[in-house]
């Protein structure tokens, strides 16, 4: 059941992205992707990196609070 939910969740971006691919079919990804299109991919990469870093931080706080919650239940 759990795995099924994760699988469905992973399908969502695939579906959404395939939609945008259909909308932008003339947008051919070239060999030097990072240098194409006015180097917009570089901006994208940096923003995604910041976002992922933020997520990792939030997730680590989440885990720490979980641990403290467990300790509190035991005492």
């Amino acid at each position, binding site marked *: 059941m759990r795995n099924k939910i994760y699988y469905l969740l992973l399908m969502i971006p695939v579906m959404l992205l395939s939609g945008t691919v259909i909308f932008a079919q003339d947008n051919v990804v070239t060999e030097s992707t990072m240098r194409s299109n006015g180097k917009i991919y570089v901006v*994208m990469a940096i923003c995604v990196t910041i976002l992922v870093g933020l997520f990792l931080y939030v997730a680590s706080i989440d885990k720490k609070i979980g641990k403290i919650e467990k300790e509190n239940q035991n005492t």
Partner: protein
Amino acid sequence: MRKSWWKILAVILLVYTFTAGFLIKVPNVGNLKETIRNLFFHVPMWFSQLILLGISLVYSIRYLRNPNLKYDIYAEAFAKTGILMGVLGLVTGSIWATYTWGEPWSNDPKQIAVVIALLIYFAYLVLRNAVPDIDKRAKVSAVYNIFAYFIYVPLIMILPRLVESLHPGGKGVEGNPGLNGADLDATMRVVFWPAVIGWALLGTWISTLSIRIYLIRDKNLINAE
């Protein structure tokens, strides 16, 4: 991480926003050029703020119906995250306005209305800290939170429909006061709505983190249900 599927959903939706938001083809509207992509980042701030403050309102009402300190903690945490989203929305809006309206602050009706709305919510936080008695604080701030929401909604949803503004949406056009529906083509909607859901979920996630901290801090004060 407990019950984590929606947290993963938030991550997926936002990573999708931050990739597709930069890559899709956007329509050419007025003097916006590429800055129309800000729609995927600036506008969801306000949508998620409305959602988070709405959740805060629900918990304030629940507190008044059943005075359990837990509900007060929920209302506070969601209000704080909502205010954070609003501040980010205001700052990103000012940056965007600098390069499209010509100046960061034009005393536009929508800018003023939204600042009043934010000040009302700042007053909520000040009010909370001004009342030392825990039960009194919970009750007074719950009442104030309900008042704040119902003055906040006219300020951002009704007032902007009545006056002319530099900001898209509102008087005389399709859509809500936040954006002009005619500017959005189908591709943009496919990125915009996942962004709104993603930010609302991330806001909820951050709120639950502070809720869990407050619950541990105040566990001796909270009555069992």
